[in-house]
């Protein structure tokens, strides 16, 4: 029984498509500056012979594009891992309330300056701490007896998320002249990313994804059941804890600098799982690259859709695309979601 095209063929086509889209997305997204430069001009700069002005513009834009790539890759990888860990295709950092949890810490970091510690360091640390707390709250409530029902998981995510958001709103309310900063950041935006931020995001996301990659084979066994995984010699408790920590680290890194960007972690792994099957050894790297490409594309669109008002915060755009997909999942893929 062979399907057409064969599995190997689909993997190659998919990898090629993702690479091409990623490269094009990066190049096109680099064209958006304070004013727009042409694709050819971007190409000239990369080839090493652009004008002085364009070189500065492209270098400036690269901060945004690179941040987008890192955040997109990180969130999609997190989604891939969490969907496998919870054995639930609806799981993602945003839907489980992790993003809101990280937002709380980040908001505190943005509002209150801690003496001797730069904001670029304090914010992700605080985000990591609150994100971790949220993770344990949601996991503790929803994961009972070795599995988590979709209903409980989503409801817990919503409830905890609502609580965290309320505290963030409160902080925003008392923020005074920093209010605009927090509001804008809360909508999810790549606009303010700087090289200093990238220097912090890169190791966090890279380390997180590297850890996830080490455990991607174990994750396959966990997807078919905890007892199966144990019978195959995997220390399930330890593996789950390590992967949750890695997911928290990556989510915190993303949220601390660009705000809560939703649905990337939900959609991207899900789409690739439909095309490539559930093997995480393949799905994880593919989701990471796909997530990077998706977020950069969204950033490109975000520059285009509201010409009179500046750049649309990218979180608004991903939600506009992602929420309908979420509803589609609930309606059309009830079986897979475990929604009887």
């Amino acid at each position, binding site marked *: *029984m062979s399907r057409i095209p064969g599995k190997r063929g689909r993997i190659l086509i998919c990898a090629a498509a993702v690479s091409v889209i990623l490269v094009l997305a990066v190049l096109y997204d680099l064209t958006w500056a304070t004013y727009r430069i042409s694709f050819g001009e971007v190409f000239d700069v990369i080839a090493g012979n652009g004008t002085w002005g364009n070189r500065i513009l492209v270098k400036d834009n690269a901060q945004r594009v690179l941040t987008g790539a890192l955040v997109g890759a990180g969130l999609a990888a997190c989604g891939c891992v969490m969907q496998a860990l919870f054995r639930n295709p609806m799981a993602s950092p945003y839907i489980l309330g992790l993003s809101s949890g990280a937002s709380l810490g980040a908001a505190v970091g943005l509002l209150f300056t801690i003496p001797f510690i730069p904001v670029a360091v304090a914010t992700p640390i605080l985000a990591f701490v609150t994100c971790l707390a949220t993770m344990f709250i949601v996991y503790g409530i929803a994961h009972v007896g070795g599995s988590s029902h979709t209903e409980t998981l989503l409801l817990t995510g919503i409830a905890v998320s609502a609580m965290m958001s309320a505290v963030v709103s409160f902080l925003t309310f008392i923020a005074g002249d920093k209010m605009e900063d927090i509001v804008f950041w809360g909508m999810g935006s790549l606009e303010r990313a700087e090289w200093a931020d990238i220097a912090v995001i890169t190791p966090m996301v890279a380390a997180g994804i590297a850890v996830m990659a080490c455990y991607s084979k174990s994750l396959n*066994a966990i997807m078919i059941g905890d*007892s199966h995984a144990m019978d*195959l*010699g995997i220390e399930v408790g330890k593996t789950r804890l390590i992967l949750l920590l890695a997911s928290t680290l990556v989510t915190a890194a993303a949220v601390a600098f660009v705000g809560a960007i939703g649905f990337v972690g939900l959609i991207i792994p899900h789409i690739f799982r439909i095309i490539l099957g*559930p*093997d995480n050894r393949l799905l994880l790297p593919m989701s990471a690259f796909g997530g990077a490409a998706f977020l950069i594309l969204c950033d490109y669109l975000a520059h285009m859709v509201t010409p009179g008002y500046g750049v649309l915060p990218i979180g608004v755009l991903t939600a506009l695309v992602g929420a309908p997909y979420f509803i589609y999942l609930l309606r059309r893929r009830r079986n897979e979601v475990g929604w009887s």
Partner: protein
Amino acid sequence: MVMTLEVRDLEFRYRERPVLDGASLEIGEGEVFGILGPNGCGKTTLLKNLNRNLRPSAGSVIIDGQDVSEMAKKDIAQMVAAVPQANEIRFAFTVREIVAMGRMPFQRYFEGESGFDMQIVDQALKDVGLYDMRDFHINEMSGGERQRVIIARALAQTPKYLLMDEPTNHLDVNMQFEVLDLVHRLSREKGLTVVIVSHDLPMASRYCDRIALINEHKVMCCGTPEEVLTPENMRAVFNVDAELSVDSKTGKHTVLLHGVSY
């Protein structure tokens, strides 16, 4: 050296409540061994202690002379495979992908399946009669087929011991025979030691060489079906009026269940 699986004075407590209270067993090489008892008697817990999915509060499990509490989980998985209670699998792994997971205890972190691994996988698929369905998706298969896939995955671990938890639960009657016939045959052909946890008296009496009866967190008795499944024991443990008899057509054991014992 005789290969055996030994349980010595095993105690297991769950939040101070005793689930196993000093269980001892010795299971010989190539045996089909049944662990029987009513729901909640601790038989599944006993099974999970055998490959250290659970750690005992006291006592020990010795496999081929080695204490499992001193072995790495991965090393245990190279000797002992298990078929857990049937569960739903939502993700669209192919049959072959699932069976190939049985090779994980033999691989390093980033190592994939070697040609040798895939030979073993394909042999396991042939053993359970699913080779032609190897590219099917597990989430679209029937309960009986899924159970056979999991058995193939366990066989791919090339184990000496196979642990099965309620292998016939939720299966149609013909599938129950098919699964147990398969396991029994594998035990005879490959010298595999099989430990089956069940509460199905007729099936256990038919397929098991020896049976341990678990009651109130202890091993009440252990021996051949004739020794263990006496009317008195079945009345005491299961509260049923029953007798062990021989099926005149097959010449094999079965248990006639007359009804509740008053």
